[in-house]
């Protein structure tokens, strides 16, 4: 009996081992290999975004993110309370985050971020109590420069499943990757984003890394390329500060190259708000803010340009054959009747007799109401078009708007052919009425005047070979006259733009103010112009929404910009990289 018991028992054991080791070998081998090697994608850091002198605007820093795999989280409340104890983040916020990033039961959802080493250690200590909780390294964007520039820099977004399924180049991305979603981050995505690597790691039963795998080499991530922008950080900082209490824009460009030196759309916000610490409530506040901080006013704000458009009429008059004599004057009595409509000059007492030079210098409306009648709508509109109005400038930011240039067809459609008259043209000549422009279009317009038509498309990428704008076909003399008028508008004792002149030796400031009527509230204050020191130039567009008088409100901000640039040895500044 004893012998047979021993033999039977050991036969059973032998068969059992045979069954597992020989019969089930393949199955278990696969399991063992899965246990052993884990291919972990290693994030490639995105390229850094720098200003023209190499100062960092957008940087990376590694953060640790705590994720929860919903499928494995047996006791969510317990998990959250342990995490809360470790991270000192309120449980309610953790749950809110978890729900916000929730994308499915089998996809890790983000619980909290920016874990410190102490917090990580604490979580590691409690790992056996936490089911489905993991932490991963994640390169977060950081903004060390102290400027906002939110509309320029843009932001990155974590790709989720629904986003991926809607993407054209989806095979290059994975769920959880970062993608540039606005601004430069989007525009130069291909440069900024690196190539992900793969780390092959041996992991033990608890998912802890025990070292590299011997026979397989890691695929090293290739970091993204850095992007040098044309931005001048200190100028940007100065102008953001100057605009901090206004709604509006400041744009500083170099007409000779098209490079953008400063780009302020106010109100703005810290680009940080996209990186995850913002609660839903804060986010709603930003979205619903009546001052629209999310709107990029420079490329996507539509405004009546007001008197800043008078140079178009002036050029039409100068170019239009002999329609006007150099010194032909019109009488401004402060009021002008055209048909059954009454037009007013901003100066109630009137300017008296004014020529074209004085009309621009003093921004006389009545002069233009009368003079514009000598040119046709088509002539006016075509000239506007050749200066870039009504089409995209081609700035290297996504989603630029075209503005509105009312052609004859447009007017017929809008008002029927009998519903509009030359009275509308009178309005258009003063930059009012149906015509709407974006500030960036005004920048191209003023850059063309500054360079006699030889400017370049505004851009942020420093290494970009500037692309010329469409060529102009105007008389050399016309450019000279217009530039003279703009110089007088700043330097003349009656000039409306005198507040824009920082009065630096050797530096001339050219400019035109504007006070645009606006159906939604107080007038918008404009200043467009440029400053020139020998061959160095910088143009500026200032808009203060509902600011009132362009000369009083907008022009002084232009002076801050010019002062900053031309007091600081502009030769070096514009040349430097």
């Amino acid at each position, binding site marked *: 009996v004893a012998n047979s018991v*021993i033999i039977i028992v*050991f036969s059973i*054991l*032998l068969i*059992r*081992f045979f069954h*597992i080791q020989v019969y089930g070998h393949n199955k*278990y081998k696969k399991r063992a290999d899965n*246990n052993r090697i884990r291919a972990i994608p290693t994030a490639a850091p995105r390229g850094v975004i720098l200003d023209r002198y190499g100062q960092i605007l957008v940087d990376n820093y590694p953060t640790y993110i705590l994720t929860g795999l919903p499928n494995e989280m047996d006791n969510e409340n317990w998990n959250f309370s342990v995490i809360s104890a470790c991270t000192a983040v309120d449980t309610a916020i953790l749950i809110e985050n978890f729900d916000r990033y929730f994308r499915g039961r089998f996809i890790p959802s983000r619980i909290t971020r920016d874990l410190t080493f102490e917090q990580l250690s604490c979580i590691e200590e409690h790992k056996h109590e936490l089911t489905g909780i993991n932490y991963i390294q994640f390169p977060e964007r950081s903004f060390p420069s102290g400027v906002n520039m939110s509309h320029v820099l843009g932001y990155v977004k974590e790709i989720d499943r629904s986003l991926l399924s809607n993407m054209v180049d989806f095979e290059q991305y994975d769920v959880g990757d970062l993608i540039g979603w606005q601004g430069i981050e989007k525009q130069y995505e291909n440069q900024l984003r690196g190539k992900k690597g793969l780390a092959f790691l*041996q992991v033990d039963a608890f998912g802890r890394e025990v070292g590299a795998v011997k026979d397989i080499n890691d695929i090293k991530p290739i970091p993204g390329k850095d992007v040098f922008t044309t931005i001048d950080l200190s100028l940007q900082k100065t102008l953001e500060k100057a605009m901090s209490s206004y709604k509006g824009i400041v744009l500083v460009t170099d007409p000779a190259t098209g490079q953008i030196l400063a780009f302020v759309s106010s109100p703005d916000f810290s680009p940080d708000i996209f990186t995850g610490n913002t609660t839903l409530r804060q986010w709603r506040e930003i979205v619903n803010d009546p001052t629209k901080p999310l709107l990029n006013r420079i490329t996507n704000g539509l405004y009546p340009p007001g008197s800043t458009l008078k140079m178009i009429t002036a050029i039409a008059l100068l170019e239009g054959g002999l329609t006007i004599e150099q010194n032909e004057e019109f009488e401004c009595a402060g009021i002008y009747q055209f048909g059954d409509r009454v037009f007013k000059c901003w100066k109630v007492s009137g300017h008296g007799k004014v020529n074209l030079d004085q009309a621009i210098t003093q921004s006389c409306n009545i002069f233009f109401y009368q003079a514009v009648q000598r040119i046709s709508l088509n002539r006016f509109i075509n000239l506007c078009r050749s200066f870039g109005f009504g089409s995209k400038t081609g700035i290297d930011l996504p989603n630029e708007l075209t503005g509105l240039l009312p052609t004859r067809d447009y007017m017929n459609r809008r008002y029927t052919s009998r519903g509009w008259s030359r009275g509308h043209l009178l309005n258009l000549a003063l930059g009012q009425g149906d015509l709407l422009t974006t500030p960036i279009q005004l920048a191209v317009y003023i850059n063309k005047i500054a360079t006699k038509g030889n400017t370049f498309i505004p851009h942020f990428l420093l290494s970009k070979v500037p692309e010329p704008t469409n060529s102009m076909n105007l008389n050399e003399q016309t450019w000279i006259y217009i530039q003279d008028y703009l110089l007088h508008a700043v330097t003349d004792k009656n000039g409306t733009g005198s507040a824009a002149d920082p009065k630096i030796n050797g530096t001339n400031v050219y400019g035109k103010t504007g006070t645009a009527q606006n159906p939604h509230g107080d007038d918008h204050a404009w200043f467009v112009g440029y400053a020139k020191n020998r061959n160095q130039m910088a143009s500026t567009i200032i808009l203060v929404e509902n600011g009132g008088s362009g000369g009083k409100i907008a022009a002084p901000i232009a002076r801050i910009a010019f002062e900053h640039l031309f007091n600081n040895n502009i030769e070096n500044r514009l040349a430097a990289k």
Partner: protein
Amino acid sequence: MFKTVYNQTSDMPVSILVFTAMLTILGLISLFSISMNQFDEVGITTFTKQLLFLIPAFVGFITILFIPKYMIHKYIYIAYSLMLIFVLTPFLFETIAGTHRWINFGLPVSIQPSEFAKWIVVVTLARYLSDHNLQMKKFMTILFPILIALLPAVIILQQPDLGTAIILLTPILPMLYWVGARPFHLFILVAPLLSIATAFHTISFTFWAIIMGSIIYLTQPRLVFGVLLYFGNIFLGLLSPFLWNSLRPYQQKRILTLFNPELDPLGAAYQTIQSKVAIGSGGFFGKGLGWGTQTHLKFLPVQESDFIVSVIGEELGFITIAIMLIVFSIFLLKVVKLAFLAKERFPGLVLIGIGTIFMAHVFVNTAMSTGMIPVKGLPLPFISAGGSFLLSCFIMIGLIMKMGNESIE
């Protein structure tokens, strides 16, 4: 004196020593592999520890060889009493790893007295069953030997160490059978345990009821007794799920923890799965010594003792496992043969008891590692790491050599 010892040893079954040596070396090889990636303590690994433990193990083995058989027979009751005291002493010390299993004298190693209870209980049972002219056909006479084993088992269960407690009880049935107890009486002993154990699984319980019925019918006890026995067991079986459910959850948990103290945090089947993956991935020839990924990446829990067979299976393959199992079975067959050859009851009983203990260890350990039975921490004789266990095993080998001595003193 040495001459008498030599005379005795010359008659001893040397093959037992060969098997022991083979298994011990296999154990050392696997522990060496495990130790290759241990850097925790300076120079001290599981392997070097085990090498050191071999010294007391040899001392214990030689000592047993020098003690005459009659001395063992004479003083075993005293040893039994001392053993009871020893298994109680851990309760005076602080817990180690949450249990009262070990006695720590402030040395780097602790002693696990319950290991020694195994062979002391066997020898005690052997003396009791051989001393008395027992009426083995009577049911009541088999109750006292059960008490002998049960007393230390209950104490050890409180430590808690269910594995060792069960091991202590296993020699009872074979030894009783050896001295001629009626199989039906042994059946009556086992029946209630099986009734409770099968009660939670309908098909098993049905089978058990049929088998029990057939056995009772075939042995033809008195009708009233047979009916009482049958329905008593059925009733017990039917009642146990209700009794279980009427317990409060924390009480249930307490009982479950008692039966499985190592309820691991990663889920019940985790250890078994990892062990099976290790063994299965080893294949026929194994991955080679030191190449077991399951072993060295710590997927295997308690690999140096309870799951050492998984290490062997993974790194050295089915071929080695098969040789090991064959060696164990030849070893046990040899022990049984020696028991048959023994001219007295006492040594025969000792051999049967010790053989049972070895067999239980091997079966529980390998069956658990391959997922045939629930996880129950029991080491594999001669192979698993552990000083007390190794010493105890070598003492038992000494006893086999002693009792298997064919010469008459």
